[in-house]
């Protein structure tokens, strides 16, 4: 994804067991914070409608 120009940080992978609730919370907080810091993803927003 990054290779094709999606900003680093927008995509993340995590392996969380159903027992690892604390990790889940941490990861979600972490990802949310990173994405918020990046701001809106204007790249994937359709620009103007074609005429």
């Amino acid at each position, binding site marked *: 994804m990054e290779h094709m120009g999606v900003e680093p940080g927008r995509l993340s992978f995590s392996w969380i067991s159903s027992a690892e609730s604390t990790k889940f919370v941490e990861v979600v907080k972490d990802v949310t914070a990173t994405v918020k810091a990046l701001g809106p993803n204007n790249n994937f927003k*359709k620009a103007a*409608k*074609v*005429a």
Partner: protein
Amino acid sequence: MKVIKIDKNDWAGGIGKIQSSYRLYGPVKGDAFHDFKALEKGELPDLNFFNTRVSPKSVVYPQSEVMFEYSLDEKDAEHHILKDAAKDYSPKAVLGIRPCDAASFLLVKRNFDTPEYKDPYWIRSYEATTFVGYACNNPCSTCFCTTAGSGPFNEEGLDVLLVDEGDCYYAKVITSKGENLLNAAGWKTEADGGAPDKIAALGKEAGSKIGSSVATDQLKDKKTTELYEAPFWEDVSFACINCGTCTYLCPTCWCFDIQDENSGCSGVRMRNWDSCMFPLFTIHGTGHNPRGTKLQRVRQRFMHKLKYYVDKYDNGIQCVGCGRCIRSCPVNIDIRRVCDMMNSYDPKACACPAK
């Protein structure tokens, strides 16, 4: 018939003037090939080309076009009711269109402008357009326009025909629409009396350079169901990968799809080019597909162009011989070959498998 002589030194200036009252389209060279694009102010069309890779049909009939807009927000007074999308039908001109491509608009018009229904988008856009043709002094080896109802100097569908004459262009005025455009450019010098003869001679020479042809004389008399059941379709369609190249590049293919596209609480109903090569084109909601196989789809393309159209309009084939589908087909399916097979097909003689 009036012929205007345009000194090539006056070319850029005239085009600048046209652009004050017309939106101008012309061939522009990208990395490797030419295509018709909207010209920026001061940008000149590049006439050093055989023909464009994609046909100029998009000048009148864009690949994607918004038809309606709507709101899905129930707080809006007129939610869920379609509203006409804003359109620009101010005058535009396409400069440097080849005669075969210009002729294609007349074929397509038969589909969009019928006694019962008028397609407002195509018709308005077409009527807003002035077609300035550029005669082919040097046709390509894959051109077969002269046997497909057109020709390198053909004037049908054009408002002006430009002919390259070394230092100058001859501009043959064909319609008053064309004359208006030449006036807007300030090109007013009439050519000397010998010009029409010269154009005719160049046209004759160009016509003689067309190296390939199709025979279409028998198509009308063939029985639809017999052609449909002919054994050669398996051979013809084998190589086909069912991409949309032939149909999207073709100046005479007009099929389209209608789609709603939402974005939040609003959206547009748009139409996009579609292709008979795609299975999705005909699949029913139930999953049944009347043209579910590649063979059926390939057959549809050729039958439509070379038989159904011929029968429906009694006005030749739905092809102007530009050769784009031949040049760009990834697997070399050649409409000239198929046309000849269809034209010469004799069901009685064909007990053997097709060759």
